[in-house]
Protein backbone atom coordinates (compact mmCIF):
# COMPACT_ATOMS: atom_id res chain seq x y z
CA UNK A 1 0.00 0.00 0.00
CA UNK A 2 1.66 3.27 -1.02
CA UNK A 3 1.36 6.37 1.13
CA UNK A 4 -1.83 8.33 0.58
CA UNK A 5 -3.25 11.50 2.07
CA UNK A 6 -6.72 11.04 3.48
CA UNK A 7 -8.91 13.86 4.72
CA UNK A 8 -10.50 13.40 8.11
CA UNK A 9 -12.35 16.37 6.78
CA UNK A 10 -14.59 19.04 8.27
CA UNK A 11 -17.46 16.56 8.25
CA UNK A 12 -16.20 13.59 10.26
CA UNK A 13 -17.58 12.03 13.43
CA UNK A 14 -14.12 12.15 15.02
CA UNK A 15 -13.50 15.87 14.68
CA UNK A 16 -16.35 17.08 16.93
CA UNK A 17 -16.21 20.42 15.19
CA UNK A 18 -15.20 22.11 11.99
CA UNK A 19 -11.60 21.34 11.28
CA UNK A 20 -9.86 19.09 8.83
CA UNK A 21 -7.05 16.68 9.73
CA UNK A 22 -5.07 15.73 6.63
CA UNK A 23 -3.31 12.49 7.46
CA UNK A 24 -0.62 10.78 5.38
CA UNK A 25 -0.95 7.04 6.05
CA UNK A 26 0.93 3.97 4.90
CA UNK A 27 -1.54 1.13 5.48
CA UNK A 28 -2.45 1.63 9.14
CA UNK A 29 0.47 3.73 10.36
CA UNK A 30 0.26 7.54 10.40
CA UNK A 31 3.29 9.11 8.73
CA UNK A 32 2.46 12.79 8.77
CA UNK A 33 -0.33 15.04 9.99
CA UNK A 34 -1.43 18.53 8.85
CA UNK A 35 -4.37 20.03 10.77
CA UNK A 36 -6.26 22.59 8.64
CA UNK A 37 -8.09 25.21 10.68
CA UNK A 38 -10.11 28.28 9.87
CA UNK A 39 -13.42 26.67 8.96
CA UNK A 40 -15.04 28.47 11.90
CA UNK A 41 -13.02 31.73 11.78
CA UNK A 42 -15.71 34.36 12.48
CA UNK A 43 -13.42 37.38 12.90
CA UNK A 44 -14.42 37.86 16.56
CA UNK A 45 -11.45 40.10 17.28
CA UNK A 46 -12.41 42.38 14.39
CA UNK A 47 -16.06 42.59 15.41
CA UNK A 48 -15.15 43.32 19.03
CA UNK A 49 -13.26 46.42 17.89
CA UNK A 50 -16.65 47.72 16.82
CA UNK A 51 -18.67 47.04 19.98
CA UNK A 52 -18.89 48.40 23.52
CA UNK A 53 -17.14 46.50 26.27
CA UNK A 54 -20.25 44.86 27.67
CA UNK A 55 -21.52 43.89 24.22
CA UNK A 56 -18.35 41.88 23.55
CA UNK A 57 -19.60 39.41 26.20
CA UNK A 58 -22.11 38.05 23.65
CA UNK A 59 -19.15 37.25 21.38
CA UNK A 60 -17.09 35.69 24.15
CA UNK A 61 -19.87 33.22 24.99
CA UNK A 62 -19.84 32.04 21.40
CA UNK A 63 -16.06 31.92 21.08
CA UNK A 64 -15.70 28.70 23.05
CA UNK A 65 -19.21 27.39 23.14
CA UNK A 66 -18.41 24.61 25.59
CA UNK A 67 -16.79 26.91 28.19
CA UNK A 68 -18.72 30.13 27.56
CA UNK A 69 -18.61 31.74 30.99
CA UNK A 70 -14.87 31.02 31.40
CA UNK A 71 -14.19 33.11 28.28
CA UNK A 72 -16.51 35.83 29.56
CA UNK A 73 -14.46 35.83 32.77
CA UNK A 74 -11.22 36.03 30.75
CA UNK A 75 -12.32 39.09 28.78
CA UNK A 76 -13.90 40.83 31.77
CA UNK A 77 -10.73 40.56 33.87
CA UNK A 78 -8.72 42.17 31.04
CA UNK A 79 -11.39 44.84 30.39
CA UNK A 80 -11.59 45.78 34.08
CA UNK A 81 -7.82 46.20 34.20
CA UNK A 82 -7.98 48.39 31.06
CA UNK A 83 -10.87 50.49 32.41
CA UNK A 84 -9.47 50.70 36.00
CA UNK A 85 -12.61 49.21 37.60
CA UNK A 86 -12.63 46.96 40.69
CA UNK A 87 -15.53 44.47 41.10
CA UNK A 88 -16.95 43.92 44.65
CA UNK A 89 -16.05 40.87 46.77
CA UNK A 90 -19.25 38.90 46.17
CA UNK A 91 -18.96 39.28 42.39
CA UNK A 92 -15.49 37.64 42.54
CA UNK A 93 -16.92 34.61 44.36
CA UNK A 94 -19.91 34.33 41.98
CA UNK A 95 -17.52 34.46 39.02
CA UNK A 96 -15.40 31.70 40.53
CA UNK A 97 -18.52 29.61 41.21
CA UNK A 98 -19.67 30.07 37.58
CA UNK A 99 -16.24 29.16 36.20
CA UNK A 100 -16.12 25.98 38.25
CA UNK A 101 -19.64 25.00 37.16
CA UNK A 102 -18.49 25.65 33.58
CA UNK A 103 -15.47 23.39 34.13
CA UNK A 104 -17.79 20.60 35.28
CA UNK A 105 -20.06 21.11 32.25
CA UNK A 106 -17.10 21.29 29.85
CA UNK A 107 -15.44 18.16 31.23
CA UNK A 108 -18.77 16.30 31.05
CA UNK A 109 -19.06 17.35 27.39
CA UNK A 110 -15.48 16.16 26.86
CA UNK A 111 -16.30 12.83 28.55
CA UNK A 112 -19.39 12.34 26.32
CA UNK A 113 -17.38 12.99 23.14
CA UNK A 114 -14.26 11.11 24.23
CA UNK A 115 -15.95 7.83 25.13
CA UNK A 116 -18.00 7.90 21.93
CA UNK A 117 -14.74 7.95 19.97
CA UNK A 118 -13.57 4.78 21.68
CA UNK A 119 -16.86 3.06 20.93
CA UNK A 120 -18.78 3.28 24.21
CA UNK A 121 -22.28 4.37 23.23
CA UNK A 122 -24.20 4.72 26.47
CA UNK A 123 -21.93 7.09 28.49
CA UNK A 124 -22.54 9.79 25.83
CA UNK A 125 -26.16 9.84 26.97
CA UNK A 126 -25.23 9.77 30.66
CA UNK A 127 -22.77 12.63 30.16
CA UNK A 128 -25.30 14.80 28.33
CA UNK A 129 -28.02 14.06 30.90
CA UNK A 130 -25.82 15.09 33.84
CA UNK A 131 -24.50 18.10 31.91
CA UNK A 132 -28.11 19.24 31.42
CA UNK A 133 -28.43 19.42 35.19
CA UNK A 134 -25.53 21.87 35.41
CA UNK A 135 -27.01 23.86 32.51
CA UNK A 136 -30.30 24.06 34.45
CA UNK A 137 -28.42 25.62 37.36
CA UNK A 138 -26.80 28.10 34.98
CA UNK A 139 -30.19 28.89 33.51
CA UNK A 140 -31.72 29.59 36.90
CA UNK A 141 -29.29 32.43 37.69
CA UNK A 142 -27.99 33.68 34.32
CA UNK A 143 -31.04 33.05 32.14
CA UNK A 144 -29.34 31.07 29.38
CA UNK A 145 -28.30 27.43 28.80
CA UNK A 146 -25.20 27.85 26.71
CA UNK A 147 -24.78 31.60 26.11
CA UNK A 148 -25.03 33.41 29.41
CA UNK A 149 -24.19 37.12 28.87
CA UNK A 150 -23.91 37.20 32.64
CA UNK A 151 -20.70 39.05 33.53
CA UNK A 152 -20.38 42.81 33.15
CA UNK A 153 -17.41 45.13 33.53
CA UNK A 154 -17.50 45.88 37.24
CA UNK A 155 -19.36 42.78 38.43
CA UNK A 156 -22.13 40.44 37.34
CA UNK A 157 -25.61 41.08 35.95
CA UNK A 158 -27.64 39.91 38.96
CA UNK A 159 -27.32 38.03 42.26
CA UNK A 160 -28.07 34.33 42.74
CA UNK A 161 -31.82 33.62 43.06
CA UNK A 162 -33.10 32.43 46.49
CA UNK A 163 -33.00 28.63 46.93
CA UNK A 164 -30.20 28.28 44.37
CA UNK A 165 -27.58 27.06 46.85
CA UNK A 166 -29.74 24.21 48.12
CA UNK A 167 -30.46 22.92 44.57
CA UNK A 168 -26.80 23.32 43.61
CA UNK A 169 -25.74 21.13 46.56
CA UNK A 170 -28.24 18.46 45.49
CA UNK A 171 -26.81 18.47 41.97
CA UNK A 172 -23.27 18.21 43.39
CA UNK A 173 -24.22 15.10 45.38
CA UNK A 174 -25.85 13.57 42.30
CA UNK A 175 -22.76 14.29 40.20
CA UNK A 176 -20.30 12.84 42.68
CA UNK A 177 -21.77 9.36 42.57
CA UNK A 178 -22.20 9.64 38.78
CA UNK A 179 -18.43 10.17 38.51
CA UNK A 180 -17.92 6.86 40.30
CA UNK A 181 -20.20 5.24 37.73
CA UNK A 182 -18.27 6.87 34.84
CA UNK A 183 -15.02 5.50 36.21
CA UNK A 184 -16.46 2.01 36.42
CA UNK A 185 -17.69 2.24 32.81
CA UNK A 186 -14.38 3.50 31.50
CA UNK A 187 -11.21 2.88 33.41
CA UNK A 188 -12.84 -0.12 35.05
CA UNK A 189 -12.93 -2.05 31.79
CA UNK A 190 -9.73 -3.60 30.52
CA UNK A 191 -10.57 -2.94 26.86
CA UNK A 192 -10.43 0.82 27.66
CA UNK A 193 -6.95 0.37 29.11
CA UNK A 194 -5.79 -1.70 26.13
CA UNK A 195 -7.13 0.99 23.79
CA UNK A 196 -5.77 4.01 25.65
CA UNK A 197 -2.59 3.05 27.52
CA UNK A 198 0.62 4.70 26.31
CA UNK A 199 -1.14 6.35 23.36
CA UNK A 200 -0.40 9.88 22.17
CA UNK A 201 2.41 10.25 24.72
CA UNK A 202 3.74 13.81 25.26
CA UNK A 203 6.46 13.89 27.90
CA UNK A 204 6.89 16.84 30.31
CA UNK A 205 9.83 18.57 28.57
CA UNK A 206 8.11 18.22 25.18
CA UNK A 207 4.96 19.77 26.64
CA UNK A 208 6.85 22.82 27.89
CA UNK A 209 8.85 23.13 24.65
CA UNK A 210 5.67 22.90 22.55
CA UNK A 211 3.78 25.29 24.83
CA UNK A 212 1.09 22.72 25.73
CA UNK A 213 -0.96 23.68 28.80
CA UNK A 214 -3.91 22.38 30.74
CA UNK A 215 -4.82 18.74 31.44
CA UNK A 216 -2.39 17.53 28.73
CA UNK A 217 0.51 19.16 30.63
CA UNK A 218 -0.71 18.00 34.02
CA UNK A 219 -1.05 14.43 32.74
CA UNK A 220 2.71 14.53 32.10
CA UNK A 221 3.33 15.15 35.80
CA UNK A 222 3.84 18.97 35.76
CA UNK A 223 1.58 20.36 38.55
CA UNK A 224 1.04 23.74 36.75
CA UNK A 225 -2.38 25.27 37.28
CA UNK A 226 -2.97 29.04 36.93
CA UNK A 227 -5.60 28.89 39.67
CA UNK A 228 -2.79 27.98 42.08
CA UNK A 229 0.25 29.70 40.53
CA UNK A 230 -1.36 33.07 39.64
CA UNK A 231 -4.68 33.10 41.55
CA UNK A 232 -7.44 35.35 40.19
CA UNK A 233 -11.09 35.87 41.30
CA UNK A 234 -11.22 34.17 44.72
CA UNK A 235 -9.08 31.09 44.06
CA UNK A 236 -6.55 31.97 46.78
CA UNK A 237 -9.26 31.76 49.47
CA UNK A 238 -10.42 28.28 48.45
CA UNK A 239 -8.44 25.06 49.06
CA UNK A 240 -8.28 22.43 46.35
CA UNK A 241 -5.39 20.42 44.92
CA UNK A 242 -4.07 20.20 41.37
CA UNK A 243 -4.82 16.88 39.65
CA UNK A 244 -1.78 15.35 38.00
CA UNK A 245 -0.91 11.93 36.57
CA UNK A 246 2.41 10.37 35.62
CA UNK A 247 1.64 8.42 32.48
CA UNK A 248 1.39 11.38 30.02
CA UNK A 249 -0.89 9.34 27.74
CA UNK A 250 -4.60 9.25 26.97
CA UNK A 251 -5.40 7.36 30.18
CA UNK A 252 -3.44 9.93 32.17
CA UNK A 253 -5.49 12.78 30.67
CA UNK A 254 -8.66 10.83 31.44
CA UNK A 255 -7.62 10.43 35.09
CA UNK A 256 -6.61 14.11 35.38
CA UNK A 257 -9.91 15.36 34.03
CA UNK A 258 -11.98 13.03 36.20
CA UNK A 259 -10.00 14.24 39.24
CA UNK A 260 -10.52 17.86 38.18
CA UNK A 261 -14.26 17.21 38.10
CA UNK A 262 -14.13 16.14 41.75
CA UNK A 263 -11.97 19.12 42.71
CA UNK A 264 -14.38 21.50 40.97
CA UNK A 265 -17.30 20.09 42.93
CA UNK A 266 -15.22 20.62 46.09
CA UNK A 267 -14.57 24.28 45.17
CA UNK A 268 -18.25 24.80 44.32
CA UNK A 269 -19.27 23.61 47.77
CA UNK A 270 -16.88 26.00 49.51
CA UNK A 271 -18.02 28.88 47.29
CA UNK A 272 -21.68 28.15 48.05
CA UNK A 273 -20.98 28.19 51.80
CA UNK A 274 -19.15 31.55 51.56
CA UNK A 275 -21.86 33.08 49.35
CA UNK A 276 -24.53 32.05 51.84
CA UNK A 277 -22.76 33.76 54.69
CA UNK A 278 -21.91 37.17 53.18
CA UNK A 279 -24.55 38.94 51.09
CA UNK A 280 -23.42 42.19 49.41
CA UNK A 281 -23.48 44.20 46.19
CA UNK A 282 -22.59 42.40 42.97
CA UNK A 283 -21.86 45.47 40.86
CA UNK A 284 -19.12 48.06 41.39
CA UNK A 285 -20.32 51.65 41.69
CA UNK A 286 -17.49 53.38 39.81
CA UNK A 287 -18.40 51.87 36.44
CA UNK A 288 -17.40 54.49 33.87
CA UNK A 289 -20.42 56.39 32.52
CA UNK A 290 -19.85 55.92 28.84
CA UNK A 291 -19.68 52.14 29.23
CA UNK A 292 -22.63 51.72 26.87
CA UNK A 293 -25.17 48.94 26.99
CA UNK A 294 -26.99 47.88 28.91
CA UNK A 295 -26.89 50.81 31.27
CA UNK A 296 -27.92 54.11 29.82
CA UNK A 297 -26.38 53.58 26.42
CA UNK A 298 -25.05 56.44 24.36
CA UNK A 299 -26.77 57.91 21.33
CA UNK A 300 -26.72 56.01 18.07
CA UNK A 301 -24.39 58.47 16.27
CA UNK A 302 -21.71 58.18 18.89
CA UNK A 303 -20.96 60.02 21.98
CA UNK A 304 -20.29 63.72 22.11
CA UNK A 305 -17.26 63.38 24.36
CA UNK A 306 -16.67 66.53 26.29
CA UNK A 307 -13.71 65.16 28.24
CA UNK A 308 -10.83 62.73 27.80
CA UNK A 309 -11.35 59.28 29.30
CA UNK A 310 -8.40 57.44 30.92
CA UNK A 311 -6.51 55.17 28.50
CA UNK A 312 -5.31 51.75 29.67
CA UNK A 313 -4.11 48.29 28.81
CA UNK A 314 -5.56 45.05 30.28
CA UNK A 315 -3.94 41.60 30.42
CA UNK A 316 -5.53 38.51 31.95
CA UNK A 317 -4.79 34.79 32.09
CA UNK A 318 -7.20 32.16 33.43
CA UNK A 319 -7.17 28.35 33.75
CA UNK A 320 -9.91 27.58 31.21
CA UNK A 321 -11.18 23.94 31.14
CA UNK A 322 -8.93 23.24 28.09
CA UNK A 323 -5.80 25.00 29.43
CA UNK A 324 -4.37 28.50 29.94
CA UNK A 325 -6.19 31.20 28.01
CA UNK A 326 -4.79 34.74 27.73
CA UNK A 327 -6.51 38.01 26.77
CA UNK A 328 -5.02 41.45 26.00
CA UNK A 329 -7.25 44.53 25.68
CA UNK A 330 -6.00 47.96 24.54
CA UNK A 331 -8.22 50.90 25.58
CA UNK A 332 -7.43 54.11 23.68
CA UNK A 333 -9.94 56.19 25.62
CA UNK A 334 -12.82 55.64 23.19
CA UNK A 335 -16.06 53.73 23.78
CA UNK A 336 -14.77 50.72 21.84
CA UNK A 337 -11.59 48.78 22.65
CA UNK A 338 -8.80 49.56 20.18
CA UNK A 339 -7.63 45.93 20.02
CA UNK A 340 -8.72 42.64 21.68
CA UNK A 341 -6.27 39.73 21.39
CA UNK A 342 -7.29 36.29 22.64
CA UNK A 343 -5.07 33.23 22.94
CA UNK A 344 -6.70 29.82 23.17
CA UNK A 345 -4.96 26.84 24.82
CA UNK A 346 -6.36 24.42 22.21
CA UNK A 347 -4.74 26.55 19.46
CA UNK A 348 -1.32 25.63 20.88
CA UNK A 349 -2.20 22.06 21.88
CA UNK A 350 -3.43 21.45 18.33
CA UNK A 351 -0.34 23.00 16.72
CA UNK A 352 1.67 20.19 18.37
CA UNK A 353 -0.54 17.55 16.65
CA UNK A 354 2.39 16.20 14.65
CA UNK A 355 4.18 15.34 17.93
CA UNK A 356 1.49 13.12 19.45
CA UNK A 357 -0.09 11.63 16.29
CA UNK A 358 2.76 10.52 14.09
CA UNK A 359 3.71 6.87 14.54
CA UNK A 360 0.37 5.65 15.86
CA UNK A 361 -2.37 3.85 13.93
CA UNK A 362 -5.31 5.40 12.12
CA UNK A 363 -7.63 3.75 14.64
CA UNK A 364 -5.74 5.55 17.45
CA UNK A 365 -6.41 9.05 16.09
CA UNK A 366 -9.93 9.42 17.59
CA UNK A 367 -8.95 8.52 21.18
CA UNK A 368 -5.89 10.81 21.02
CA UNK A 369 -7.89 13.69 19.53
CA UNK A 370 -10.63 13.02 22.08
CA UNK A 371 -8.11 13.31 24.92
CA UNK A 372 -6.90 16.68 23.56
CA UNK A 373 -10.50 17.98 23.99
CA UNK A 374 -10.73 20.29 20.99
CA UNK A 375 -13.13 23.26 20.98
CA UNK A 376 -12.83 24.62 17.46
CA UNK A 377 -14.66 27.85 18.24
CA UNK A 378 -11.83 29.16 20.41
CA UNK A 379 -9.10 27.96 18.04
CA UNK A 380 -10.49 29.81 15.03
CA UNK A 381 -12.01 32.76 16.96
Amino acid at each position, binding site marked *: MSEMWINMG*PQHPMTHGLWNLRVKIDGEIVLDVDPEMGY*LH*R*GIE*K*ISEDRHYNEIITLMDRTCY*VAGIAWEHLFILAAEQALHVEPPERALWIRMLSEEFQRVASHLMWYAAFVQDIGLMSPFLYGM*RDRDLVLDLFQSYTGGRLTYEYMRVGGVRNDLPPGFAEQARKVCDWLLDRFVEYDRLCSGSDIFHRRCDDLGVVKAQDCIRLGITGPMLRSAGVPRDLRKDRPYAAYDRVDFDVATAETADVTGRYVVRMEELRQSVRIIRQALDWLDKNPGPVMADNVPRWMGAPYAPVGREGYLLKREYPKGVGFSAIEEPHGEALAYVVNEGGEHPYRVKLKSPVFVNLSAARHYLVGYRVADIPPIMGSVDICVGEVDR
Partner: protein
Amino acid sequence: MGRLSAAKPVLTTPAAAPTAEDSPLPMATEPAVPFIEIETLRAREFLPAAKEALGSLLSEQAQGKLIRPMFNWAGRNSLFPLHWGLACCAIEFAAAFGARWDAERFGVVPRSSPRQCDLLIVNGTVTWKVAHKLITLYEQMPEPKWVIAMGNCATGGGPFRTAYSVVPGVDKLVPVDVYIAGCPPRPEALLDGILRLEQLIKERKE
Protein backbone atom coordinates in the same frame (compact mmCIF):
# COMPACT_ATOMS: atom_id res chain seq x y z
CA MET B 1 -21.82 53.71 17.91
CA GLY B 2 -22.87 54.24 14.32
CA ARG B 3 -20.52 51.51 13.45
CA LEU B 4 -22.10 49.88 10.51
CA SER B 5 -23.14 52.80 8.40
CA ALA B 6 -20.34 53.02 5.87
CA ALA B 7 -21.12 56.68 5.46
CA LYS B 8 -19.73 57.76 8.86
CA PRO B 9 -17.08 55.24 9.94
CA VAL B 10 -16.39 55.39 13.66
CA LEU B 11 -13.01 53.71 13.24
CA THR B 12 -10.23 56.28 13.05
CA THR B 13 -9.21 55.32 9.53
CA PRO B 14 -7.05 57.39 7.17
CA ALA B 15 -9.05 58.31 4.09
CA ALA B 16 -6.42 57.07 1.62
CA ALA B 17 -6.42 53.37 2.61
CA PRO B 18 -8.51 51.07 0.33
CA THR B 19 -11.85 50.31 1.98
CA ALA B 20 -13.55 46.96 1.82
CA GLU B 21 -15.80 48.11 -1.03
CA ASP B 22 -12.88 48.05 -3.48
CA SER B 23 -11.59 44.62 -2.45
CA PRO B 24 -13.79 41.95 -4.07
CA LEU B 25 -16.20 40.11 -1.79
CA PRO B 26 -14.05 37.36 -0.18
CA MET B 27 -15.75 34.53 -2.16
CA ALA B 28 -14.10 31.18 -1.73
CA THR B 29 -12.06 31.24 -4.93
CA GLU B 30 -10.55 27.85 -4.29
CA PRO B 31 -11.87 25.62 -7.13
CA ALA B 32 -14.58 23.32 -5.76
CA VAL B 33 -13.12 19.94 -4.79
CA PRO B 34 -13.46 17.76 -7.94
CA PHE B 35 -16.13 15.74 -6.15
CA ILE B 36 -17.53 12.62 -7.63
CA GLU B 37 -19.68 13.54 -10.62
CA ILE B 38 -22.91 11.79 -9.85
CA GLU B 39 -24.68 9.88 -12.54
CA THR B 40 -28.08 10.00 -10.93
CA LEU B 41 -30.26 7.04 -11.51
CA ARG B 42 -33.62 8.39 -10.47
CA ALA B 43 -35.62 5.73 -8.75
CA ARG B 44 -38.56 6.58 -11.02
CA GLU B 45 -36.64 5.76 -14.23
CA PHE B 46 -35.04 2.90 -12.41
CA LEU B 47 -38.33 0.99 -12.47
CA PRO B 48 -40.10 2.25 -15.60
CA ALA B 49 -41.87 -1.06 -16.19
CA ALA B 50 -43.26 -1.16 -12.66
CA LYS B 51 -44.60 2.37 -13.04
CA GLU B 52 -46.56 1.63 -16.18
CA ALA B 53 -47.89 -1.61 -14.70
CA LEU B 54 -48.98 0.19 -11.54
CA GLY B 55 -50.42 3.06 -13.54
CA SER B 56 -52.54 0.79 -15.60
CA LEU B 57 -53.72 -1.27 -12.67
CA LEU B 58 -54.59 1.60 -10.33
CA SER B 59 -56.05 4.79 -11.68
CA GLU B 60 -53.84 7.88 -11.26
CA GLN B 61 -56.18 9.20 -8.59
CA ALA B 62 -56.07 5.98 -6.56
CA GLN B 63 -52.28 5.93 -6.87
CA GLY B 64 -52.21 9.50 -5.59
CA LYS B 65 -54.60 8.52 -2.78
CA LEU B 66 -52.73 5.35 -1.69
CA ILE B 67 -49.05 5.22 -2.77
CA ARG B 68 -48.01 8.84 -2.36
CA PRO B 69 -49.42 9.27 1.18
CA MET B 70 -47.74 6.03 2.26
CA PHE B 71 -44.31 7.19 1.01
CA ASN B 72 -45.03 10.64 2.41
CA TRP B 73 -45.75 9.11 5.83
CA ALA B 74 -42.57 7.05 5.61
CA GLY B 75 -40.45 10.00 4.46
CA ARG B 76 -41.60 12.29 7.21
CA ASN B 77 -41.35 9.80 10.06
CA SER B 78 -37.79 8.71 9.48
CA LEU B 79 -35.64 11.80 8.82
CA PHE B 80 -31.93 10.94 8.98
CA PRO B 81 -29.94 14.17 9.64
CA LEU B 82 -26.26 14.44 8.81
CA HIS B 83 -23.92 13.92 11.81
CA TRP B 84 -22.17 17.29 11.42
CA GLY B 85 -21.75 20.06 13.98
CA LEU B 86 -20.55 23.52 13.01
CA ALA B 87 -20.63 25.76 16.13
CA CYS B 88 -22.58 26.38 19.36
CA CYS B 89 -25.85 25.06 17.92
CA ALA B 90 -24.08 21.71 17.45
CA ILE B 91 -23.86 21.42 21.25
CA GLU B 92 -27.63 21.88 21.54
CA PHE B 93 -28.03 19.50 18.56
CA ALA B 94 -26.07 16.90 20.58
CA ALA B 95 -28.11 17.68 23.70
CA ALA B 96 -31.27 17.04 21.65
CA PHE B 97 -29.97 13.46 21.14
CA GLY B 98 -29.04 13.19 24.80
CA ALA B 99 -30.99 11.33 27.43
CA ARG B 100 -33.37 14.13 28.37
CA TRP B 101 -34.72 15.15 24.94
CA ASP B 102 -34.39 11.97 22.95
CA ALA B 103 -34.78 12.96 19.28
CA GLU B 104 -34.70 9.28 18.29
CA ARG B 105 -38.29 9.06 19.50
CA PHE B 106 -39.30 10.72 16.20
CA GLY B 107 -37.13 8.35 14.14
CA VAL B 108 -34.40 10.98 13.76
CA VAL B 109 -31.09 9.09 13.73
CA PRO B 110 -27.94 11.03 12.73
CA ARG B 111 -25.92 9.25 10.02
CA SER B 112 -22.33 10.06 9.18
CA SER B 113 -22.37 9.64 5.39
CA PRO B 114 -24.41 12.13 3.33
CA ARG B 115 -25.51 9.26 1.10
CA GLN B 116 -27.78 7.90 3.79
CA CYS B 117 -29.16 11.24 4.99
CA ASP B 118 -32.17 13.19 3.80
CA LEU B 119 -32.02 16.11 6.21
CA LEU B 120 -29.19 18.63 6.52
CA ILE B 121 -29.43 20.50 9.84
CA VAL B 122 -27.05 23.46 9.49
CA ASN B 123 -26.25 24.06 13.17
CA GLY B 124 -23.78 26.91 13.42
CA THR B 125 -21.91 29.69 11.64
CA VAL B 126 -21.27 29.02 7.95
CA THR B 127 -18.02 30.65 6.85
CA TRP B 128 -16.88 31.21 3.28
CA LYS B 129 -14.15 28.60 3.76
CA VAL B 130 -16.67 25.84 4.52
CA ALA B 131 -19.26 27.10 2.01
CA HIS B 132 -18.30 24.94 -0.95
CA LYS B 133 -17.84 21.89 1.28
CA LEU B 134 -21.38 22.42 2.56
CA ILE B 135 -22.68 22.68 -1.02
CA THR B 136 -20.80 19.47 -1.92
CA LEU B 137 -22.38 17.65 1.04
CA TYR B 138 -25.82 18.96 0.07
CA GLU B 139 -25.39 17.65 -3.48
CA GLN B 140 -24.25 14.23 -2.26
CA MET B 141 -27.54 13.70 -0.47
CA PRO B 142 -30.13 11.67 -2.44
CA GLU B 143 -33.08 13.57 -3.82
CA PRO B 144 -35.95 13.91 -1.38
CA LYS B 145 -33.84 16.11 0.94
CA TRP B 146 -34.64 19.03 3.20
CA VAL B 147 -32.54 21.67 5.01
CA ILE B 148 -33.16 23.10 8.48
CA ALA B 149 -31.30 26.33 9.29
CA MET B 150 -30.84 25.94 13.04
CA GLY B 151 -29.98 29.06 14.99
CA ASN B 152 -29.43 32.66 13.96
CA CYS B 153 -26.00 32.08 12.43
CA ALA B 154 -27.51 29.74 9.82
CA THR B 155 -30.64 31.92 9.43
CA GLY B 156 -28.90 35.24 8.79
CA GLY B 157 -25.35 35.24 10.06
CA GLY B 158 -26.40 35.95 13.68
CA PRO B 159 -24.02 38.06 15.83
CA PHE B 160 -21.26 37.59 13.22
CA ARG B 161 -23.15 38.66 10.09
CA THR B 162 -20.92 41.73 9.70
CA ALA B 163 -17.72 39.63 9.81
CA TYR B 164 -15.60 39.38 6.69
CA SER B 165 -15.50 35.60 6.67
CA VAL B 166 -19.13 34.65 7.49
CA VAL B 167 -21.88 33.77 5.00
CA PRO B 168 -24.91 35.85 6.07
CA GLY B 169 -27.35 32.96 6.19
CA VAL B 170 -27.14 29.46 4.72
CA ASP B 171 -30.11 30.21 2.44
CA LYS B 172 -27.59 32.00 0.24
CA LEU B 173 -25.97 28.61 -0.45
CA VAL B 174 -28.68 25.96 -0.31
CA PRO B 175 -32.52 26.22 -0.34
CA VAL B 176 -33.76 26.14 3.28
CA ASP B 177 -37.10 24.66 4.36
CA VAL B 178 -37.36 25.55 8.06
CA TYR B 179 -35.63 28.32 9.98
CA ILE B 180 -35.29 27.91 13.76
CA ALA B 181 -34.68 31.12 15.70
CA GLY B 182 -32.52 31.09 18.80
CA CYS B 183 -28.92 31.63 19.68
CA PRO B 184 -28.58 28.69 20.28
CA PRO B 185 -32.16 27.39 20.11
CA ARG B 186 -33.06 25.03 22.95
CA PRO B 187 -33.15 21.31 22.14
CA GLU B 188 -36.95 21.53 22.46
CA ALA B 189 -36.94 24.30 19.85
CA LEU B 190 -34.96 21.99 17.54
CA LEU B 191 -37.54 19.24 18.09
CA ASP B 192 -40.28 21.81 17.43
CA GLY B 193 -38.49 22.71 14.18
CA ILE B 194 -38.30 19.06 13.15
CA LEU B 195 -42.02 18.61 13.88
CA ARG B 196 -42.74 21.72 11.79
CA LEU B 197 -40.70 20.23 8.94
CA GLU B 198 -42.75 17.04 9.18
CA GLN B 199 -45.90 19.16 8.99
CA LEU B 200 -44.44 20.95 5.96
CA ILE B 201 -43.64 17.66 4.20
CA LYS B 202 -47.19 16.50 4.85
CA GLU B 203 -48.66 19.68 3.36
CA ARG B 204 -46.34 19.76 0.37
CA LYS B 205 -47.10 16.05 -0.34
CA GLU B 206 -43.47 15.34 -1.32
